[in-house]
């Protein structure tokens, strides 16, 4: 969407190319928000160039690109929910364990004879419930979001373990495995689902009253309330969205692994917070895009994929991804 805007801008400026265009361009470069919005694109190009130079025959292949996109799909869906939450100046630390909880409930429903569709719905509802509980406690009782979602992180993983008795359930289903490995051309089904959800999320944020109220709640809660916006309802809504998406992503996770695992995947949590920061969403709320965090998710997957491809031990990947997150947060902060 962004690239379209720039091309249309530059095509009009061809006719009116004068000094004012240069001045505008220069002021854009000085605008810290410009960097917050576009940092992720530059970082992505940097990653592609570096790994492309080191290992062109391994990294820059269609097969590998496909791997990156498949690996990005689930974190991308989680990051959409996280973006809504962070846009209201909140944070959802429970996303990955809510997804695990969703996967276990999916597995439970499926192995008890439910169809994939209903099992998926069941997992999504389980995720939604976690989100609603988060949202209500945070907004109505005004308990710190960090504490509430940290508590939910533990509760959801606990329920996942209790319901599954601590062991994974095999889920064998033809349509699920098709979903996991299928693709339209080079675009995996999983990524198509993520992109469809991202497009809906983008429209919800930028073309509906709800989206404006999300940013208003995050930007200045008192102002939003004084204009009659129910910030309580908005907050419950964003945590619910995050829960719904985590519960839904669980189905995709089960389809990839072939079983419903009760083990929490903390890397996904780090990923979702990291991608939001990298993607230029302000942690203080009120600002952000969907494009940025999605791009950042692909960037982080490319980074860890690239490191694997060039043979860096996975232990170092944690260090590098953590560093990238902190550095990007510093870049945005200092430019403000």
């Amino acid at each position, binding site marked *: 969407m962004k690239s379209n805007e720039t091309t249309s801008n530059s095509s009009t400026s061809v006719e009116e190319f004068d000094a004012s265009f240069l001045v505008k361009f220069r002021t854009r470069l000085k605008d810290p928000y410009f960097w917050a919005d576009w940092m992720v694109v530059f970082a992505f190009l940097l990653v592609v160039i570096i790994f492309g130079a080191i290992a062109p025959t391994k990294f820059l292949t269609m097969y590998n690109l496909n791997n990156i996109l498949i690996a990005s799909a689930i974190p991308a869906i989680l990051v959409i929910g996280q973006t809504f939450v962070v846009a209201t100046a909140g944070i959802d630390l429970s996303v990955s364990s809510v997804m695990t909880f969703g996967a276990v409930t999916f597995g439970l429903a499926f192995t008890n004879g439910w169809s994939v569709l209903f099992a998926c719905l069941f997992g999504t509802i389980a995720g939604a419930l976690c989100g609603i509980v988060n949202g209500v406690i945070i907004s109505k009782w005004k308990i710190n979001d960090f504490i509430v979602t940290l508590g939910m992180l533990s509760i959801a993983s606990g329920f996942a373990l209790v319901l599954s008795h601590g062991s994974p359930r095999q889920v064998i289903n033809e349509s699920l495995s098709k979903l996991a490995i299928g693709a339209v051309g080079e675009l995996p089904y999983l990524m198509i689902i993520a992109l469809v959800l991202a497009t809906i999320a983008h*429209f919800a944020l*930028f*073309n*509906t*009253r709800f989206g*404006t*109220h999300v*940013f*208003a709640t*995050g*930007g*200045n809660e*008192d*102002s*939003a309330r*004084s*204009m*009659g*916006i129910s910030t309580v309802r908005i907050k419950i809504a964003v945590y619910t969205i995050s829960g719904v998406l985590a519960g839904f992503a669980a189905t995709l996770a089960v389809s990839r692994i072939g079983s419903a695992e009760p083990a929490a995947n903390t890397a996904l949590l780090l990923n979702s917070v990291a991608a939001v920061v990298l993607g230029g969403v*302000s942690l203080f709320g*009120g*600002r952000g895009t969907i494009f940025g965090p999605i791009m950042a998710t692909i960037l982080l997957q490319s980074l860890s994929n690239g490191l694997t491809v060039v043979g860096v031990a996975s232990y170092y990947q944690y260090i590098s991804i953590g560093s990238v997150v902190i550095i990007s947060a510093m870049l945005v902060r200092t430019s403000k």
Partner: protein
Amino acid sequence: MTAAAEYSVEVRNIRKAFGSVDALRDVSLYARPGEVTAIVGDNGAGKSTLIKCISGVYKADDGDIFINGEPVSFASPEESRSHGIETVYQTLGLVEDLAIWQNLFLNREAVKGIGPFKFLDKNTMRQRSTEMLENLDVYIPSVKSRVRGLSGGQRQAVAICRATGWGSHVVIMDEPTAALGVKETAKVEALIHRLKSQGIAILLISHNFDQVLRLAEHIWVMRQGNVMAGMRAKDTNGDELVALITGASAGRK
């Protein structure tokens, strides 16, 4: 607006207590259309509480509010707003990261619908915002710019514009120039004059006596939850106001 009513807003015998603290003991006052009515008083005199009762943020424990002579009762700020009462708080109520047009239309967004799906009608909102701001004698770069980049005076102008752009006939302003420089204060005062000439009743809270005497037609002095005095601005002076506010003068009613 019903032309027959003498007062745009009138409150009679308003009481409001917070626990054991009587914020408003027995307050009666009014504001005429096309006039600036100032409410002055020390901190804790009850000015803000009174304003919040009129704007629907608080519900008075006792007493009546009349809008254009009609008795009303507000359960929420929206109800007050739907009666044409707008409030510009000291904090302005703007969202810095949203564009000017988004702030002007905050919670009043224009939408166009396809079935149950309603999408923002951004063009209409931007266009109307431009028209709303054209009336101001304050330079605003573009309705698309974010409020964060605006000066204090420009922000005040946007907030006042939002308050008056919806057919309101009562505008309450809480310390509109407290944070502004000399030049910007002059612009905002010019804006208040313009609103007055449109027949809007303006309730002004200000600590600045010079400003009150300069702008207001009518002045109410509050002290410890009571109205100490109400008089035409031309019949009083700064010394008397100070005496009434501090309690050195017993007041006149």
